[in-house]
């Protein structure tokens, strides 16, 4: 998975890219297939017709402009949280703190957005930068604790989730409490909000384009800059990176901080894009689902975007499915869980496709360098 070095002929790069994409798609597609098969058995067990349920599910996700709009709205914050988890993962660090980082971003966006309302689009930009800054600083805390005190990032990011959620909740209900009947902050002025795309896509807004831009930024950062090379080197082989004089401590702090900034932007697009305010209770599980999105997307920015669309689509489609059949909404979570279960199960593919797949499977391990 080294995304090409400079100075190679374009044809070779393209061919390699296609091979990579083909290899990268085998496991997710197989996992999706298995998941829908298991889902069909579950649907039959509930006395429903799986074909009808799946038709409703897919129509509800992609069948009309408004369905696509709902999918995009669901997917947008997940692109950011997925990227936030993925960047840290590349450094061999497991960021479970996305949930709290989303809350930090959301309260920052709501606070700045309300305060700077008259500035219009300039305020949007300030909100964006503010979220990057607060997310970066919040994400740096577990990095700092890991680098200088040896505190395991899995523990500290989990703890920081609870702290961030409580902190943001307090601010939204007290310091920044708005006038409205729904508990939470005031609503951000319309001029500050991300514009709707239109085209019948409903509430879908330009946040999704920001998400794609963020994926490009993450790709360039990780594969086209020296710092990104260092971050990946620390993830693949901390010992070798250290020997090569790359500061493990600095890269640890930086990777988690950048991850925090991406996750905080998930809060930004939710507040400035979709809701216009931070209401309490704020939408839950954006950060935790970001873990699933990142892993489904093999911690690659392109994969993350597709992973987020799959998550968002299944969530949107499930409502239609529940409406059209008696299958409960939660089936979408079950389907996603089964996809995740199988997406790295390389041995299964050996049973299905034969030993040849082993070469494909090589290099798909995500756990190299984790748990150091």
């Amino acid at each position, binding site marked *: 998975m080294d995304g090409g070095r400079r100075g190679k002929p374009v044809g070779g790069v393209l061919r390699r890219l296609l091979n990579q994409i083909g290899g990268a798609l085998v496991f997710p597609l197989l996992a999706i297939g298995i998941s829908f098969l298991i889902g069909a058995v*579950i649907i039959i067990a*509930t006395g429903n017709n799986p074909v009808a349920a799946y038709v409703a599910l897919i129509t509800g996700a992609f069948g009309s402009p408004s369905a696509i709009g709902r999918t995009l709205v669901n997917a947008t914050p997940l692109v950011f949280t997925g990227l936030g988890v993925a960047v840290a993962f590349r450094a061999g660090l*497991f960021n*479970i703190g996305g949930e709290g980082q989303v809350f930090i971003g959301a309260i920052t966006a709501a606070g700045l957005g309300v305060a700077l309302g008259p500035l219009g689009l300039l305020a949007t930009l300030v909100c964006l930068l503010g979220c990057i800054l607060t997310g970066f600083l919040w994400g740096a805390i577990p990095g700092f*604790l890991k680098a200088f*005190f*040896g*505190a*395991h990032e*899995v*523990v*500290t990011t*989990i*703890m*920081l*989730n*609870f*702290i961030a959620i*409580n*902190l943001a*909740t*307090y601010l939204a*209900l*007290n310091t920044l409490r708005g006038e409205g009947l729904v508990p939470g902050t005031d609503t951000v002025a319309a001029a500050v909000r991300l514009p709707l795309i239109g085209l019948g896509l409903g509430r879908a807004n330009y946040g999704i384009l920001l998400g794609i831009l963020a994926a490009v930024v993450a790709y360039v950062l990780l594969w086209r800059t020296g710092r990104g090379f260092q971050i990946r080197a620390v993830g693949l082989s901390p010992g070798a990176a250290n020997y090569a004089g790359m500061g493990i401590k600095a890269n640890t702090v930086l990777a988690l901080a950048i991850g925090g900034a991406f996750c905080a932007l998930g809060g930004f697009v939710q507040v400035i894009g979709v809701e216009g305010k931070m209401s309490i209770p704020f939408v839950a599980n954006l950060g*935790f689902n970001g*873990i*699933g999105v990142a*892993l489904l997307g093999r911690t690659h920015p392109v994969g993350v975007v597709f992973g987020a669309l799959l998550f968002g689509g299944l969530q949107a489609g499930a409502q239609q499915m529940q409406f059209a059949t008696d299958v*409960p*909404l*939660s*089936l*979408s*979570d*079950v*389907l*996603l*869980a*089964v996809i*995740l*279960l*199988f*997406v*790295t*199960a*390389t*041995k*299964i593919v050996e049973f299905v496709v034969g030993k040849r797949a082993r070469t494909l499977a090589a290099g798909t*391990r*995500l*756990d190299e360098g*984790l*748990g150091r």
Partner: protein
Amino acid sequence: MEDVLGLIGSVLASAIRYATPLVLAALGGLFSERSGVVNIGLEGLMLISAFTGVVGAYFSGNVIVGVLFALAGGLVFSLIHAIMCVTFEADQIISGVAINLLALGGTGFLMVLIFGSGGTSPRIGGFSEVPIPLLSQIPIIGPAFFNQSPLVYLMFLLIPLTFFVVYRTPFGLRLRATGEAPEAVDTAGVSVTRMRYYGVALSGLLAALGGAYFSMDQLSAFTERMTAGAGFIALAALISGRWNPIGAAVAALVFGFAQAVTFRIAQDAIPLEFLQMFPYILTIVALAAFGGRAIAPAAVGKPYRKE
């Protein structure tokens, strides 16, 4: 003076109640991780068993049947994790995340199918306190240690038992060796696969007791997402306690104590949100100050493939 003693006693008692599911799940995670399988799915294992326990207790009217159902739920889900991680060599962290999501979706799904709607299940007859004669009359420690529900007593028994099994039995030696040097275990003629299945299955059973505590003791019903991150805190306790049963239990008890204290003191002076932050801040500070440089079992997270 009597009042102060009474207060200390009741804070201690509630600290132990908060800590009970955390200790149980952390001990479970210990068996899994010592065998070399990361178990980030403790949260899901507790959630599904909290649910299956309520289903068992609701339809049988018997709390013991409920516990058996909880154990079965935890066992089945942990075996899914084992099949994926050990047999199919899936990524252990992804599988754990999937177990959490599967439990979340699965319980939501089954709530609708079995009880007709999501949210909260009908009430069941749960556990109640069983005071131990005489001992429960001792000031301070009486109410804390000797006037609790059976699951709390079980938790206290399981801490030394886990220590004994892990450090003083051939099984424990093999389990630890599987997590540190699977090649050596394999060479010695012990099946790495089998040891890891045992480890993960034990994590399911112990986490199930933690789950049962939530739905059949703390509350006599199941509510969606009722474990609310406890599995992650148990994981944190396990790591803070450096994969040692006593250490993990102490970490969980300290956390429970912090939680109990914050809800007794200064409710009016300090906003609720800040009180709720306190146990987590304390854990971070404690970890940074004393518990740093946690060394995981060497082979944890890596699938073992015979050469």
